[in-house]
């Protein structure tokens, strides 16, 4: 719980639009996040006041990358960054995914695939189920590190036409890590519970401090109020649903 956290300025190396509204941003520096951990990010002055939380998508010798979708003010400002601009990062934060015991499935919806890539890299032989609203992205990168990779999208590009919960079946897995829209997570939990598969989900909540101090990101779980930035973002599904 008491690992060190750093505040660093990092230089943007690339900020590429993968599909409309979705970007992969690479920044230079020496980072060391666990799969499922996140950073608070900002690249503006006083307004908006808060950092924005993003999962560490990938780590390399060169630096770190984030996968993000434009939602509002903060992400619009991020989308304008160009190589050479600088970024402020606080992290690594949060608990990250647990060490899996047994066969692992990764299920992500949209930019919800962001915290899964490092997991696929770290926990070898995991299968990945990736769902997209439009054109799929980064599927090849997943194929390089995951076991089997399935893709679903609304218009069937890249594989199945429909939602990711239609291609995923819990049979054969011991544990499943998922991130995406709340309804998707709820649906997965129904499936995993029935099948006796442990499901861990990564939750999102607005954050101020990211460190556990402000209690702004609290969610109510079966074991009481929990901070997404500290006890989370990864929670056992049975705690949440």
């Amino acid at each position, binding site marked *: 719980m*008491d*690992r*060190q*956290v*750093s*505040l660093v300025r990092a230089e943007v190396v690339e900020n590429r639009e993968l599909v409309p509204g979705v970007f992969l941003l690479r920044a230079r520096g020496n980072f060391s996040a666990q799969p499922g951990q996140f950073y608070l990010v900002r690249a503006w002055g*006083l*307004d*908006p*006041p*808060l*950092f924005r939380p993003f999962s560490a998508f990938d780590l390399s010798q060169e630096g770190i990358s984030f996968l993000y979708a434009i939602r509002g*003010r903060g992400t619009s400002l991020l989308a304008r960054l160009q190589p050479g601009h600088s970024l402020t990062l*606080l992290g690594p934060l949060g608990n990250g995914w647990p060490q899996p015991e047994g066969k692992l499935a990764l299920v992500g919806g949209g930019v919800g695939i962001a915290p899964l890539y490092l997991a696929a890299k770290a926990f070898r032989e995991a299968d990945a189920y990736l769902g997209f609203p439009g054109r799929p992205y980064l599927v090849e990168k997943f194929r390089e590190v995951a076991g089997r990779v399935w893709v679903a999208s609304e218009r069937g590009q890249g594989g199945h036409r429909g939602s990711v919960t239609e291609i995923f079946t819990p049979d054969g897995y011991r544990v499943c890590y998922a991130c995406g829209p709340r309804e998707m997570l709820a649906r997965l939990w129904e499936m995993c519970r029935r099948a006796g598969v442990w499901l861990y989900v990564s939750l999102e*909540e*607005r*954050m*101020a*401090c990211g*460190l*556990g*101090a*402000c*209690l*702004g*990101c*609290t*969610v*109510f779980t079966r074991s*009481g*109020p929990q901070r997404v930035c*500290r006890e989370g973002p990864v929670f056992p599904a049975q705690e949440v649903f």
Partner: protein
Amino acid sequence: MPDTSVRIGSLVLKNPVLAASGTFGFGGDYARLYDVSRLGGIVSKAITLRPRAGNPPPRLWETPCGLLNSIGLENPGLEAFLAEELPRMRELGTAVIVNVWGEDPEEYGELVSRLSLPGVDAIELNLSCPNVRGKGLVGENPEATARVVAVCRRATDKDLWVKFPPQGEVLQAARAAQQAGATAISAANTYRGLAIELETGRPVFANAIGGLSGPAIKPLSLRLVYELSQVVSLPVIGSGGIVSWQDAVEFIMAGAHAVQVGTGNFIDPLCAPKLVRGLRKFLVQRGLGSWELIRGCAHRGGISGAA
């Protein structure tokens, strides 16, 4: 070397920069990032007699240069605080101020009495939490303020800082607090604000109204500190939108003895230690040996007027 310290009641702070209640937990979270012993002191999250779960999410909403919050006093309760948090807070190497919130004067009395322990350097009476449904704020009302402070004054020998809301009859209430035995005035807590979600047409918070903090409110809190420091002889501790050492100097010039950094911690997690360094530099560059000459100088025609 200038003397950056300030005295507030029986307590000498090594510098005038405190972490504000509710934004810094019990200090340990930020200690993962920097050496928090550099701060003048740390004010704990509000402690209540029993544990409280707080309000449902969302609890945060951004406004232009401001932050609305509706935390609702989530805290582990006095017992858990005493058992788990206080011992760790004492180890942080800086002054420990415990912020408390009670349902009535008796609860405040019980809280301060049970907090009369070594290692608690002062107690901040939170008479100003805007995020509890259906309660008027004690600090808006001079009589109610006097009652709570008087009960607490009897219940403990500890320094009592009284934290006020920014609205209501605060000036009179601060005088009442002084008469009832307060050690210092802390001003101010957040401003009652609202945001409405366009999609639904509903207030974004379950409680509708939240508390506004951050740079947006700085000119308002600075004005309040300026006025308070004229009506009480107690030290005033300023907070509200302080994010730079320049902001902090303005508060001191308005009459504050010390300042608290709240939302500034979120805007820049190193905001508070940067203030400590900036303030020291300011004293050096202006050739000031201590805060005496500039504290409250805005009331006296400015810096030269003070000389």
